[in-house]
């Protein structure tokens, strides 16, 4: 493809436009990578947060996901719980989502932002019935243990 965007690529999706009125992006993800992205509970959790806001600091994300997984309020998340999720996001799940073009990651500020394939993945996530209601992912912790590391 001509004109690969450089590293400080801008977010091309307009958050205010509803997916229904948008033409699909030219380079849509195939179905398999979409499901691969959503196959891991931590990546789904990360995607839930993108429904809420298009930009997150990695620390805030780690705190939020640790709270969900441990089923505790965010302010009671321990440093160990937060660090564990942070390392997992930093070393595995964030680069995976960057690879698939779902998010961009600014190393200097440690901020993630939605990228060109975010709409498609979030639409798929909503299509399979997921919502910000974490009730649906109550068993994510045990689910995660059975899956990839």
């Amino acid at each position, binding site marked *: 493809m001509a004109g690969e965007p450089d590293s400080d690529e801008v977010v091309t999706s307009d958050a205010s436009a509803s997916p229904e009125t948008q033409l699909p992006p030219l380079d849509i993800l195939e179905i398999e990578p979409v499901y691969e992205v959503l196959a891991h509970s931590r990546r789904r959790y990360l995607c839930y947060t993108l429904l809420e806001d298009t930009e997150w600091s990695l620390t805030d994300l780690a705190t939020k996901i640790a709270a969900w997984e441990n089923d505790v309020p965010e302010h009671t998340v321990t440093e160990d719980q937060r*660090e*564990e999720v*942070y*390392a*997992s996001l*930093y*070393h*595995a799940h*964030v*680069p*995976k989502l960057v690879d698939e073009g779902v998010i961009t990651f600014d*190393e200097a500020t440690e901020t993630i932002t939605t990228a060109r394939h975010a709409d498609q993945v979030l639409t798929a996530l909503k299509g399979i019935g997921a919502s910000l209601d974490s009730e649906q992912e109550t068993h994510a*912790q045990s689910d*995660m*243990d*059975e899956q*990839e*590391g």
Partner: protein
Amino acid sequence: MAEDDLTSSANTHGTQVAQRQYEHNGQGELTTAIIYAIAEADGVSLSEVKSPPLYDSVDVPAIEKAFFGPNGAGDSRQGVGTVEFQYSDYLVKVQSDGWIRVYEPTEADHS
């Protein structure tokens, strides 16, 4: 090369500086377990292990699947072996029994 009797496996791998056992059915991910071992080798906290992401060094989900992943019947595949990879200055070995070992190059390795 001189024998190093402080660590049983100090040979061509250099000197072992950290180890950790990953329990597949326990809590946590293989990626995090490897980072714990590297953090210990570095003497830093987990979140201080930065750049490059482990993702860029080795395909951890592939190791996970090969060693611990379910087979068609839902049992563990029980692959046997060791995967070694370089991370920063360390050599990291992940064994199919779950042991993760981190080695630092010895002087001899620099020659």
